[in-house]
């Protein structure tokens, strides 16, 4: 959404005292059978997890509170490690389909650092090492645009609704939720009051809730205390950590409920689900191998680009509001079929002209396009002006030539770019074999000067174009 639309939605949200949806479709597929939630409390800067709540989102979570999170002894993490192992096995049995709900990105970061710390730690128990690997797999999957495994509740809400807050305030999940709760009469005041306490996976440390200072002091006292006093001090640490990690969990549960309560259909995400499932299936079975070599990094970037494109196009195709916004920017073309050139009805070849009065049209020659809501695909072969001052887009139809109701004069169409989303593994394998200098060399090779052909580069390019 552009800044103008975003701002108008904010004004509307202020006016209506409610969050305003900015989409009519969901960017997240339905939860698969293996769906879990994780919420954490970490130590600021140390980034050591001191409390975790985890489990099924429809039940009370299991909670681990860590009295000495900086110690080398990690046996207190064993229940979480076992849970992650069970979850991974269930996901593998389901072909890699997994959903992990987290309240916000800080939780993902905490899991990633946990993974970094233990996935190769030779002194940690095997189960904790396996947990580290799973955490790294999950965190890596979350880097792919459009991935369907990690559901970051705060990010999902920000992607699908706008409130009357400033954008920077919407990073606070509890503040966002004030705008999604019908029981809150004045969400602006309520949200800004909620912002006093952090919703970022850390203990609060305000004058009225000095939990972080208190736990820090208690940990020091525990080291000196013995017997009953030591037990009391430990009990207090546990109570504080339990209380605040359960608050994080509750935020997660509320945010998920609020998101699902928007009732947005999640159509058109099958390709993204399949990509995620395949990646998870492979990684959970074989492990995580960070890309280091140039050709591997290129593959990773290509996968991310493909994911981004697929995500954008899936959202556009499934969401009239987004298409309307894209139409104003020229990314989607709304027009009427003015001519159909199809010698044999229902057969190739077929070319159509679509006339549009849009002020901005971003389609260019050779763009692969599709007609929204149909299986009709094609390639842009011409863009010209009409007598009435509009734009005519000529499209060679490459798929769906039998859809005569669409491919007939007078039909109203919405045309958008077709997803490319292709990673050329074959080419990158060749790169690995041949190790060419753009990937592996330090400097460009010297090429002997040749005699210029005297032909214009544009002429050479024009010759290379397909008719």
């Amino acid at each position, binding site marked *: 959404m552009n800044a103008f639309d*975003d701002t108008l939605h904010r004004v509307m949200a202020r006016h209506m005292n409610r969050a*305003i*949806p900015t989409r009519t479709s969901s960017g997240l597929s339905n939860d698969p059978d293996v769906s879990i939630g994780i919420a954490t409390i970490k130590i600021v*800067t140390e980034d050591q997890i001191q409390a975790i709540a985890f489990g099924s989102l429809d039940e009370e979570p299991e909670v681990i509170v860590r009295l000495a999170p900086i110690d080398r002894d990690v046996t207190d993490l064993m229940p979480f490690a076992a849970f992650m192992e069970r979850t991974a096995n269930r996901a593998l049995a389901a072909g890699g389909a997994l959903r992990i709900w987290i309240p916000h990105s800080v939780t993902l970061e905490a899991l990633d650092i946990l993974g970094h*710390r233990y996935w190769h730690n030779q002194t940690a128990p095997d189960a904790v090492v396996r947990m580290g690997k799973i955490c790294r797999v999950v965190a890596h999957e979350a880097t792919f645009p459009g991935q369907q495994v990690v559901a970051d509740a705060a990010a999902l809400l920000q992607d699908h609704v706008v409130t009357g807050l*400033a*954008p*920077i305030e919407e990073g606070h999940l509890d503040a966002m939720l004030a705008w999604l709760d019908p029981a809150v009469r004045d969400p602006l005041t309520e949200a800004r009051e909620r912002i006093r306490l952090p919703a970022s996976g850390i203990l609060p440390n305000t004058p009225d809730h000095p939990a972080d200072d208190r736990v820090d002091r208690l940990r020091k006292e525990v080291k000196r205390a013995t017997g009953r006093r030591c037990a009391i001090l430990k009990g207090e640490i546990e109570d504080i950590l339990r209380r605040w990690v359960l608050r994080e969990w509750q935020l997660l549960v509320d945010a998920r409920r609020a998101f699902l309560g928007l009732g947005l259909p999640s159509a058109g995400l099958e390709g993204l689900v399949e990509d995620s499932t395949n990646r998870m299936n492979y990684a959970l079975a074989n492990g995580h191998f960070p890309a280091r070599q140039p050709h591997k990094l290129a593959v990773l970037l290509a996968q991310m680009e493909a994911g981004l494109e697929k995500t954008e196009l899936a959202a556009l195709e499934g969401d009239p509001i987004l298409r309307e916004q894209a139409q104003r920017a020229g990314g989607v073309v709304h027009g009427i079929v003015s001519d159909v050139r199809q010698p044999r009805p229902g057969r190739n070849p077929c070319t159509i002209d679509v006339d549009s009065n849009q002020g901005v049209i971003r389609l260019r020659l050779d763009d692969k396009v599709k007609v929204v809501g149909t299986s009709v695909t094609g390639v842009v072969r011409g863009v010209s002006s009409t007598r009435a001052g509009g734009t005519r887009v000529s499209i060679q139809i490459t798929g769906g030539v039998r859809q005569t109701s669409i491919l007939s004069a007078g039909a109203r169409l919405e045309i958008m770019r077709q997803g490319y989303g292709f990673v050329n593994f074959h080419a990158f394998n060749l790169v690995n074999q041949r190790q060419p200098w753009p990937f592996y060399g330090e400097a460009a090779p010297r090429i002997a000067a040749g005699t210029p052909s005297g032909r214009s580069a544009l002429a050479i390019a024009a010759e290379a174009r397909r008719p």
Partner: protein
Amino acid sequence: MTVKGSTALVRLAGNPSCEILGAMVMQEGSEKRFYERIVGEPYDREFGERPSSKRRGAQFEQNVFAGDARLLRESFAPFLGIDADAVIVRNLFDDYPGTKDDSRVARLRITREILADAVAGRPAPHIIIQPQLLIPTSPGPRPYFFIAPDLLVRSPTDGVYLPGDLKSFIVRENEVAKGDLARVRLQLGAQALALMHEYHRIDPSITVGSNGMLIFSRPNGLNPHAPRIEDLGGAIEAIRIGISAFLRHRQRINELRAGAEPFTVATDLSPNFQDACLTTCVMAQWCRQRVAGQTSDMGEIAREVLGDMSIEHVIGLMTGTIEPANDHERIVAVQLRELAAQHNTERVA
């Protein structure tokens, strides 16, 4: 966040138009105290660095500087192009520890001696730990800012020192979040500027590069990543702008206060409330009250898009109770009515 030393300059660089920030920098005492004296109530939000952050920062430095800075020598050996055992380190905290002004002045004197030695071609250490620099802003209250890089590293190419800073927060794969990097680059920018000042005291013709080094912590234990060389061209310019802004604010505040403390004239000063204030400044809520009901209250982008008008006015355009005064308002009114038509009924979340 504090308003002392390089942090003050970093904050001024981020919001050079804010006179309230200028007054905070001039005011003796903490930022929290400044708030309480103006508002008349205790500050009810989190304030200050958390104990865990302080502890980790101290432990990281201690670990990196231990054993004649063994880890640091190993980290910088490839950059210096010599064996780690051949790297000469001088820790000025060994001579004058502490953060009191006397110690700082003593370390500043030693730092100046070392820089002069290096310029004169006399032996000088490859790495200076806990050097002390300053940026002068005299004459006037706050005549200088003490700038304390964690270290200075001598470039093997031209023999000029570069500032370096240790950051104890955990970074994976030495890839730093954009927001964190912007902040620490500004910090390094202030250090580079202070270093330029010190070099130019010795010889104005010395060229000091606009580079600095950052050393982040690995996820495991307290080990440092390889140093990152940062280009500080933009950061140095931003700090220069921040210093100019401070000098401008100081002059205005001095004219207004007539010898009284800076906080006494706060209501006469112009704040420049921006989104980032909410995460960096104790005065953010107080400043925001001045834009309550305005488009700025919904963020900087809203102010840019709609202009400086009240939210009531915008809603009036939508409902038709206010006639659009120009084409911009007309477009806003039309678009808002379309939006209202879409959302008035069941689609409201």
